[in-house]
Structure formats: C-alpha cells, structure tokens
C-alpha cells in the first residue's frame, strides 16, 4: 500500500486542491492513502479552521485521508489546543517555523513538543527556509526531546540540503525520520545508504508538486517494489504509534 506522507489540499494560492481531486490523483497512480495538512494561511494565522477542515475531510474520505493538524507555539495554551485536535482525530502535528515565526530550538515550542510525546503523535517539521529550516536545527531539538517522534521534512531543500549527509551520517536518532517531498530524487539513494529504508518517508507535497510525476521520478531511484517501508510502511507505523 502506497501512502503519500504529506499533501496540502487547500483553497488558496498554490495549494488549491479539493479532496475529490486529490483522491482522483491518488487513484490514477495507485496511491491508497495520504496525509493531509492545513495550507499556509491556516498554519500561519488560522490553524483552528485548518485543523477542522482536515479532520472533516479525513472523516469523509472512507479512511483514505489522514488528518494532520497545526498549532502555533505562540499560543499560551498550545498544548491544550493540540490535545483538542488530537481528540477530534488529528494524527500528526505540523510545525512550519518560517510561517509560524519561531526557530526550532526556541523554548517557545517546548510545551508543544512535550505534549506530542505524551499524546503519541509524530511532529512534522518543515525544513528548507533559511532562518529556521535547517535539518541541523531539527536534529538538535529531536535530541533534546527523546519521547517525541520527529519527521524532518524536505531534507532542507534546497540550500540546507547540505546539512543532510552530516545529520544522516553522524546524528541519526531513534526518534528521527526523514520525509522526502521536495528532496531531489537523485539524492535519495545516498540517504538510503546511510540510514536504510526504515527511516525514509515518501511524500509529494501535492499540489505544490504533481503526485504522479514525483512518484515516477522517485521510483527510478528508489523502486516502489523494493522499498514498501519508504512508500507507506514507515509513515503508517508512525501514525499508528508503532514505529520506534
């Protein structure tokens, strides 16, 4: 079963994509399930409605779409808001330091990271943007929060991608996974060599990318038939809480 580890079906700017269209795109290329996350404006200023939209979309998808939520760490009651979203069905916390205005190592985010550990949700960190999007910044925070399970997204693409080989080679952690959307597909065999297949997660970031195009490109470098963990097993384990 192929699972797309990150998509943003939305209504604005470059993330306009309905649930029906996403499901159709998945059907077209044999993707069974997908994680769905709020779009940029929701993550930045209106996470509550974004979370509700994702949860509702997931509930109406016959179990094919999996809701992720976001909470700004600037909220003084952020852990409570996260617990409420999880209670309604959210399976993963998404943090986007650039959109939400923090750097990963800021103590501001500590209460949320402690809460995800207690709730058993994985936390997905966007990387890439220059000030708060380095893989090193996520790796060091993951090291400080061993009870939380971290998904380092996008491999720092593009300029922070240079961090990745050092992180993978020297700072791999039992609570750190690597999501591959926006990672250049030809880089993935190098990742695989360093950390093996049980730490990597295929995702498209549709509609920023075309799901079918990305899947085909990744398949050339890391064949779907050889690595079921990358194309679904790992994210399924994280969302079910079984991956350790």
């Amino acid at each position: 079963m192929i699972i797309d580890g990150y998509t943003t079906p939305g209504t604005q700017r470059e993330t306009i994509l309905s649930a029906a269209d996403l499901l159709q795109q998945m059907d077209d290329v044999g993707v069974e399930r997908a994680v769905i996350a709020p779009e940029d404006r929701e993550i930045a200023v209106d996470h509550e409605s974004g979370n509700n939209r994702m949860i509702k979309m997931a509930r109406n998808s016959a179990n094919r779409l999996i809701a992720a939520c976001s909470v700004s760490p600037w909220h003084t009651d952020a852990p409570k808001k996260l617990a409420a979203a999880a209670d309604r069905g959210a399976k993963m916390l998404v943090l986007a330091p650039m959109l939400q205005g923090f750097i990963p190592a800021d103590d501001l985010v500590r209460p949320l990271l402690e809460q995800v550990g207690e709730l058993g949700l994985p936390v997905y960190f966007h990387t890439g943007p220059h000030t708060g999007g380095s893989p090193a910044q996520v790796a060091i925070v993951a090291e400080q929060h061993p009870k939380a399970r971290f998904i380092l997204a996008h491999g720092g693409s593009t300029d922070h991608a240079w961090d990745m080989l050092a992180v993978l080679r020297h700072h791999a952690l039992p609570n750190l996974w690597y999501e591959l959307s926006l990672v250049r597909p030809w880089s993935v065999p190098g990742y695989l060599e360093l950390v093996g297949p049980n730490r990597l997660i295929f995702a498209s970031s549709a509609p920023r990318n075309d799901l079918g195009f990305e899947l085909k490109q990744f398949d050339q470098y890391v064949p779907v038939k050889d690595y079921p963990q990358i194309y679904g097993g790992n994210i399924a384990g994280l969302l079910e809480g079984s991956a350790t």
Partner: protein
Amino acid sequence: MIVDCHTHWGTEWQERDGLEPTRWLREFDRHGVTHAIVLPHLGLIDAGNIPSDNDAVATVCAKSKGRMLPFCTVNIWQPETALSELSRCLEQMNFRGIKFHPWLQGCSVSDPVMDEVADAAGTAGVPVFFHDGTPPFSLPSQMALLAKRHPKTQIVLGHTGLFEHWRESITAIRSTPNVWGCMCSPHLAALKAILQGGDLSRLIWGSDQGWTLNDLIDYRLPLMDCLDLTDQQHQAIFSENPRRLLGI
C-alpha cells in the same frame, strides 16, 4: 531548438572526462537539448582556480561546434584582478556571459565591485547570471536593484528564487525590464506562478546539469511538461528568449 540555460562544467565531469564534451553532448542529444549555457563550477568554489577553470570551460565549449556557450567568473574580492580577468575572458576568449554564485563565492550582489562588473557586462553586451534564492547575498531583490542601477545590462536570476524566494523573483522580473528568470529548481506550483506572473519574454529554462553526475535534465525537462505550455510559451522559453539573451 531547446536551450538549457543553466548547466555547469562540473568538477565531477571534469575529473572524469577532462576537457572532452562527447559524453556531455550525448546526454543532451538524448533529451533533445540543442544548446546550453555552460557555467563554471570549480571556479565558483576555489577562487585560486578561477583563471584555469575559465580556460577549461572555454576549451571544452570550443569542442562543441557552438552548442556549449561558455560563461566565466571572477573574484570580486580582488577588484583589479577581477576586472583584468573579465577583460581577458570577454575581449580575448569570447565568453558569452558572466556567472556569480554569491553564496559560494562569499560576495555580495550589492558590493561596489559588482557594479563595475555589471557595467563591463553591459558594455560588452553579455548577461550576468546569478545563483539566486539564498540570503544574505543572493536574493532576487538584490539582483533587481543591481539591474535598475545598470539598465543596459541583462541580469539573470538563475533559479527564479528557488523554493523560498520565488514570489520575490516574480516581483523582480515584473518590476525590472532587464531581469530575466531561469526556470530551474522551484517546485511545480511555483513554476506555474512564475509563468503566470512573470514576463514571458524574459523567462528561460535550465536544468543545473553538470553540478553532479546525475542526469538532472531527466527531472527538470519533463517537469516543464507538467505546465502544459502553449506552443508560444514553449517556443519563447526554450528557444526565442535564450536566443535573444545570448545573441545566437
């Protein structure tokens, strides 16, 4: 005609193939790419090797029967040497443009010496091609201001802002008639927005082929197919615009 406006005579290619472009051209033939701007690589990461790498780029391109169009680089931290090398490359060696990777080269687009380089490029009628999308030295806005100070010089954003600054690249292109955007590296949604919001007459395409030994054209050329370009757009981006920019 398909012109790949962003390639490098990469260090790994140079180590493997020396100054022989046969394998390079074979890969281009396989993808239907007819011409390419060939930027340096070693010269961008090792200032001490700039003259010899400029020579290497010129030599390999000279063996391509006009298909590989060489761009040089200089080290603006040594202004006199930089301008002298620039003069050698443009006046004696027929380089078709100048390349800077300000992040790797550790130099600001706003450095006064860059103004002298831009002036020289304008006088010679060749474009200045930048890596862009990376602060603090490589932002589209910094390049747009340089372009505004030197309206006769064509300035190319080599990545149209990458993943983080592609919106800024649209503003830079729209606001500055001598700024060009090379559609190389942003994601699909960003490329769509650049196509809609930029100026079609100053958009070109590139693959970054040569930066590694991987076949980057194999990803970035079919990615452009996902844009469903009209014939007019295709012709402009892959052929007409680069021909106008490069005078070919």
